[in-house]
């Protein structure tokens, strides 16, 4: 168990300036480590105790703190846990942690509190992942999605699918293990229907992966265009209007610049592909490795040009792509009204052309709203429905989907129930892998409850 044992401590409020910081200590020795460091020991669990935090060796005063003891198993991690609320700021919490480490605690690894909560049965795997998401949620929308997941909605949804499959499995096994019994005939349609419904559920969840990923990780939006079309100025114009979350430091090794912004609660990741090899041609540009990768992973593309006559050409190229896109006609402050109208008329409605001036800040807000509308339309960014945001979930769902497709195929081929049953069992076990629970496929139990067995 090397690496995961012992008592851990870490700052559990965000680093930086704030009124109060909370340091958590979790593990079998939590109380023993705290005892020499405080002037008053909490008399009982769950009682917030005001005390001084002192250095156990030189009795040097560090801070006035409130200490609360959560006794195992009634704590967040399921272990003995002590919360120390101290004054905010990096320095005091840093001093306290230093003392705790000196007294036998060790720094917690990333996510280790949640990991312990999961291992001690305090939450299932999807809930644990949701906690991790919540901590990493960069905008309120993804926070909301994380909360839905945490409430066990995904687990519920999976349970529904599982139930359909258990039903199907029982109907199959009835025909195998009880074929010598007097039981009403099972129609293959009854089984097919359940497999079909299971597949629909799974497909919905898999589709929600994109939605979940966009909400959680942000929508990836590369700005693609020829040199001097105004890629960087567009990005700068957007950054001026929006709340910037992170900004790339120039000179990093990447060949593009990524900016994360919060637009109406949605996380958008804009990529400036500037610095790419100079080329005269959009298609050739799209063929460049770095751009190709960005475009392949894009959730929405911004194609920027300053020439109205290029619009139909770009539109033609975009029609071969499956990703939503906006053609941005830049530098309209220098273009006659007529040219702009002409450019707009080149394309169909589902491929918007937005006329802006990055330099002069014209129509940038409208462009941003349009980006969001397109994303919402295309990815159904509804935070209230269950969605998955983890690649791990998506992979398990893929396994389940494959197994169910195989089951459906076997049913269509008129294969004997034991083959279909094998596929369904595989699908059920893939779903269990998501929640990390083994729910043994108690098919027989299900059968006994539903059918009159025993001749």
């Amino acid at each position, binding site marked *: *168990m090397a690496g995961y044992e012992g008592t851990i401590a870490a700052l559990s409020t965000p680093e930086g300036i704030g009124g109060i910081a909370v340091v958590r200590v979790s593990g079998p020795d939590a109380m023993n480590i705290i005892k020499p460091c405080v002037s008053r020991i909490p008399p009982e669990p769950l009682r917030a105790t005001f005390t001084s935090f002192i250095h156990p060796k030189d009795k040097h005063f560090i801070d006035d703190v409130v200490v609360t003891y959560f006794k195992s198993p009634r704590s967040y991690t399921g272990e003995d846990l002590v919360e120390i609320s101290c004054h905010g700021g990096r320095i005091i919490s840093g001093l306290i942690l230093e003392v705790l480490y000196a007294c036998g605690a060790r720094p917690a690894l990333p996510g280790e509190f949640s990991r312990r909560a999961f291992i*001690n049965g305090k939450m299932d795997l999807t809930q644990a992942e949701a906690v991790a998401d919540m901590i990493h949620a960069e905008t309120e929308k993804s926070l909301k999605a994380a909360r839905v997941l945490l409430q066990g909605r995904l687990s519920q949804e999976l349970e529904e699918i599982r139930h359909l499959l258990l039903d199907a499995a029982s109907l199959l096994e009835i025909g*195998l293990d009880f*074929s010598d*019994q007097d039981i009403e005939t099972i129609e293959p349609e009854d089984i097919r229907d359940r497999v079909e419904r299971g597949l629909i559920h799974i497909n919905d969840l898999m589709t929600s992966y994109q939605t979940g990923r966009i909400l959680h990780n942000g929508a990836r939006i590369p700005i693609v265009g020829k040199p001097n079309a105004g890629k960087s100025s567009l990005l700068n114009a957007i950054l001026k209007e929006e709340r910037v979350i992170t900004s790339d430091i120039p000179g990093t090794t990447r060949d593009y610049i990524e900016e994360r912004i919060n637009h109406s609660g949605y996380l958008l990741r804009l990529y400036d592909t500037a610095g790419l090899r100079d080329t005269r041609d959009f298609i050739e540009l799209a063929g460049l490795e770095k751009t190709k990768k960005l475009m392949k992973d894009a959730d929405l593309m911004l194609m920027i040009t300053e020439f109205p006559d290029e619009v139909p050409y770009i539109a033609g190229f975009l029609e071969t792509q499956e990703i939503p896109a906006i053609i941005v006609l830049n530098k309209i402050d220098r273009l006659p009204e007529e040219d702009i109208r002409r450019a707009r008329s080149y394309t169909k409605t589902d491929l918007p052309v937005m006329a802006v001036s990055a330099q002069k800040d014209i129509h940038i807000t409208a462009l941003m709203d349009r980006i969001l509308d397109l994303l919402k339309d295309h990815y159904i960014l509804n935070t209230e429905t269950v969605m998955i945001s983890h690649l791990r979930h998506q992979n398990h769902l893929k396994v389940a989907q494959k197994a169910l497709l195989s089951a459906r195929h076997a049913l269509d081929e008129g294969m004997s129930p*034991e083959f279909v*049953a094998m596929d369904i069992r595989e699908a059920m076990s893939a779903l269990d892998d998501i929640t990390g629970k*083994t729910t043994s496929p108690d098919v027989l139990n299900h059968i006994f409850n539903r059918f*009159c067995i025993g*001749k």
Partner: protein
Amino acid sequence: MFHVKRTLEEFDVIVVGGGHAGVEAALAAARLRKKTALVTLSLKSIARMSCNPSIGGLAKGHLVRELDALGGEMGRAIDQTGIQFKMLNRSKGRAVWSPRAQADKRRYAEYMQQTLLNTNNLHIIEGEGARLIFSMASVRGIYLKDGRQIFGKAVILTNGTFLNGLIHIGPIQIAAGRYGELPSVGLSDQLKAEGFVVKRLKTGTPSRVTHRSIDFSRMSPQYGDPDPEPFSFTTSAFHPKNIPCYLTYTHEKTHEIMRAALHRSPLYTGDIHGTGPRYCPSIEDKIVRFYDKPSHQLFLEPEWEGSEQWYVNGFSSSLPIDIQFKALRTVPGLENAEFIKPGYAIEYDYLPSYQLRHSLETKDISGLYFAGQINGTSGYEEAAVQGFMAAVNACRALDGQDPIIFSRSEAYIGVLIDDLITKETDEPYRMFTSLAEYRLILRADNTDHRLYPAAEKIGIQSQQMIEHFKSSVQEKDLIKQFFKTASCPKDSPLRLSPDRTERYDQLIKKHILRQEHLSAIHHTLFPEVQFHSLDQAFIEILYEGYIHRQEQMVTKMRLLEEKQIPEHFNYDTVKSLSNEGREKLKRFRPETLGQAGRIRGISPSDIQILLIYLT
């Protein structure tokens, strides 16, 4: 300690109980040249079928075939004495085909008794086992009720339903092991005192009626297969009888009579405490739980050829005698039925099997083995395989050899024993094909191919049969090779692909070359090989994709299956285990991580933690 008064000779293996587990255990031990004693209440009751007159059936037929490949007796016995043979699930895939036979109860028991009497090293001792003799944490023998002491190095308990057996018929309760036979009292109390957990189970049996009182013209006859397959690989020239059973139905009137008397059923008065099998419920259970079902099937089965006693399959009941008789007489064909015996429920003691190792030896007392209903199973077949395995492992232990333990991917026997030990059953355990994860590999038709290496290692199966099995596997491999490389010519007399030449394996997978073509292929292409080898090659090619997937699953599971947990591992040192997981692990003391993972209440994270811990 007890004062040793008169010492009889010392045995290697003592088998207590002469039912289906005891018979196989005694034969296996004696055939392994161990001096063996079979303690039974009476010679005449050996291998008695106390319930239905049949052997095999869904999944149970698989067990019999496996036992036969390993050298057990049950398959041969039923082939010699059966009166109707049928392959169940013939319309389904080959993996779930299961052989079943109607037995001639008398001849079956006589066959077994004769076999026992003719087996060297085997001594039958009539008497009732009363108390085990222990020395330290080992078993040393058994005291009989009449005061005799029998010493032995290993003891296999196969007491069936006799441990504190209690029969219920309506309000009447009779202490009995079977109808008209005394129970065995004391043994389970002693085991309890030794620290074993003892629990109660319940099972039941239907009434028996006379042949002359049945109006068969009102029922439909049910025959076996016209060209039946034997159970045993050793059986040749198989031409058994085909004596029918008869099918009839209960109806509303029958149900009404029983419903009105439910308050007199011990199931509902609370007199019965044990849990009964849900797959074999009593008739009153059926009408209560499925009250909207207007009728239930009943099969009338002869108990032996020309039997005066007929078994009413489907009418197991513990209602008072008058109600059973009155209700049964409403059934078409049974209007004038005369009764020989009423149906009854029986409660008995069993020892939850988490107290055993996979060798069927108890975890706490060395040399003491349990097999059969004492482990909470039901069924002759389930009992037989356990008896055989317990004896094999007892003998191996005496010789200082490792036990033979089948994995879940090797044999139904492995599934059965692993289920017993890792899963808590609160109803009698019965074999089902759905309990086997690797069902497509564990077929009833390939037990010889699957198990010959184990059979050879065990050493009971004749060397001649082992060679026969081996050559069949070789033949199968060659035929598969041929099918995968050779093409069926356009002008083949089989006319399988008249338009173009196509490879045999493709024809099989496209369902063009089918089961019914095999005998023609046999005659034209491989007249010199066993038909069985061709059949196996055919099945393996037909289901290749699925079989391959199952084999991959087996490989995936092997990591955990092979990860041993030290015998006295202290789970308290692994702090991060869930409480439920820790409690279960301490109780079940699994031998491998694979077993641990199958225990209910142990989560995958517990397993991950242990895996990290044990690495």
